[in-house]
């Protein structure tokens, strides 16, 4: 594979280099919630001694801190789980371990993956390596920043409404959200179960293909994981797609997009034309309704999923004053444990599911969801993939949207419909925006048919082979 050098060198040297880089940079970026220095070095030594191997032998990786590991803590960026030590390991993490990867640490996130900026964490915000005063995107912002800063070549994130693709776009790296069901969600702390999917953050598409080959596939522990066979994503990666037809929705050329995002998107379309692709103008009108549907469905599921965090069996338990009862224990523990964005989404979900509002909100959103999927299916009957921006804006300033949840939600306009439809999608580095003296990465999103990741990666690789955006590094 003519990609990066992740497959060369001694595991111990690579683990040490990765940990050193984290130590050197993380006081400024805050990408990590924990580093597992001793454990990582010990594991690397085992691999060097021939004790373990596989497709990712000796590759340092980082995990978003909503993926369970049977060591360290699984915090979800939440005071509720700040000291939570998971008794088991997520399937995706176990597969990385079994393939020889060395987990060097866990990365910061918006609490329970609810956010688009990695500011909603009990550990404070993560910075964008390209401009430390800006957000890395979110919610997998710690994973994206760790990869962009060159600390690890591969990190896992989770993507419920864009949480892998949007931070990848804002940090100038490759972010892949596979088809719903492609990767087991066992051990991923649930946010919205019908939308959640684990994805990869890497510097290039070759590394994404390697990592996906390891984590994808059926798992008896997740009954929604697909039984479909997983192809070798790396094998034909460099082979261009013949007769490529790319759909460009009219809604993607939105004048409300940041002008630099519009410029990069137009240049990307031109590049694909030069590469022989036919651009097909299509209409996906429900993109404009995706946010409204998503922010009904996701909080509804979240309000139900997070009900388990009640201070009883694990997580934070509040102290009761004399005379206070079990109900007060639930309320106090949850109010102390959850940050404002999580509280808002739980309440929003509770509201839209309450009797009297269920039909008007939740049921309506589920109908829109079907229509969104039908619209995409129609496009895929004629095109191989859809091309859209990954985010309407480059990275914004930390704090800029902190008190305006709706403004933050609108940043997800190009990503949420894909989760509602369960499709695979990826963000690839496509340019740099000049914003107030800073050079900020801009990604472009490729959306594919369900279970068509192999071709989606090839379509991305055609662009990667013809451009050098994926080789640009932040000025750290």
């Amino acid at each position, binding site marked *: 594979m003519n990609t990066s050098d992740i497959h060369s060198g001694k595991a111990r040297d690579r683990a040490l280099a990765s940990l050193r880089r984290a130590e050197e940079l993380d006081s400024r970026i805050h990408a990590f919630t924990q580093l597992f220095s001793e454990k990582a070095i010990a594991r690397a030594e085992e691999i060097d001694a021939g004790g373990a191997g596989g497709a990712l032998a000796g590759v340092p990786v980082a995990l978003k801190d909503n993926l369970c590991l049977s060591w360290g803590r699984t915090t979800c960026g939440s005071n509720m789980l700040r000291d939570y030590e998971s008794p088991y390991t997520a399937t995706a993490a176990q597969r990385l371990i079994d393939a020889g990867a060395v987990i060097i640490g866990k990365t910061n996130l918006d609490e329970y993956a609810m956010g688009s900026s990695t500011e909603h964490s009990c550990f404070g915000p993560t910075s964008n390596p390209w401009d430390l005063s800006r957000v890395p995107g979110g919610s997998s912002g710690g994973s994206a920043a760790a990869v962009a800063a060159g600390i690890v070549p591969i990190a896992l994130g989770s993507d419920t409404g864009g949480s892998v693709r949007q931070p990848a776009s804002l940090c100038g790296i490759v972010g892949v959200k596979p088809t719903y069901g492609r990767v087991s969600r066992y051990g991923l702390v649930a946010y919205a179960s019908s939308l959640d999917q684990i994805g990869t953050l890497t510097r290039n598409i070759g590394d994404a293909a390697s990592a996906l080959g390891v984590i994808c596939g059926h798992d008896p522990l997740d009954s929604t994981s697909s039984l479909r066979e997983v192809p070798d994503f790396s094998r034909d990666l460099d082979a261009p797609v013949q007769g490529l037809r790319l759909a460009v929705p009219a809604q993607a050329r939105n004048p409300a997009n940041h002008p630099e995002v519009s410029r990069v998107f137009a240049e990307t379309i031109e590049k694909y034309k030069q590469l022989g692709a036919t651009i097909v103008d299509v209409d996906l009108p429900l993109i404009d309704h995706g946010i409204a549907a998503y922010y009904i469905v996701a909080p509804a599921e979240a309000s139900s999923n997070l009900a388990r965090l009640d201070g009883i069996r694990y997580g934070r338990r509040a102290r009761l004053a004399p005379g206070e009862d079990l109900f007060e224990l639930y309320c106090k523990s949850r109010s102390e444990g959850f940050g404002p964005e999580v509280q808002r989404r739980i309440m929003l979900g509770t509201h839209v599911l309450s009797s009297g509002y269920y039909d008007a909100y939740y049921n309506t959103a589920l109908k*829109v969801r079907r229509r969104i999927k039908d619209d995409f299916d129609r496009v895929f009957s004629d095109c191989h993939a859809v091309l859209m921006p990954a985010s309407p804006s480059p990275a914004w300033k930390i704090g800029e949207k902190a008190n305006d949840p709706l403004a933050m939600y609108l940043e997800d306009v190009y990503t949420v419909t894909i989760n509602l439809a369960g499709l695979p999608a990826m963000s690839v580095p496509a340019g740099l925006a000049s914003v107030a003296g800073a050079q900020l990465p801009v990604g472009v999103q490729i959306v594919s048919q369900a279970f068509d990741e192999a071709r989606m990666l090839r379509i991305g690789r055609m662009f990667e082979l013809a451009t050098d955006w994926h080789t640009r590094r932040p000025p750290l």
Partner: protein
Amino acid sequence: MSGQTLSNDYVRKVAKLSRLNLTDEQVRQYGAQMSAVLGYMNRLRELDLEGTEPMANVGGTTNRLDEDVPGQTLPNAALMKIAPDSMAPFVKVPKVLGDGGGA
């Protein structure tokens, strides 16, 4: 589905259903923010959804059943370790019956 501002009392009611205690300031703040979000959702009313079936998930709508074979479970000791308060093999909770409150 209206664009109305949620009343403080209604926000308190939803907070209670959500098992959350809010300060008066949070009631005002969350109420305003949730009202803005719900107002934005009114755009769904523009759509003609007649005849469209709701879709709760993209996978199959049938459950996949496992063979009835006993598997491994986490040992009780591992779960006691993460419980905030326990008397192995049990998790300790405040009194539920009698004067335990309406929870």
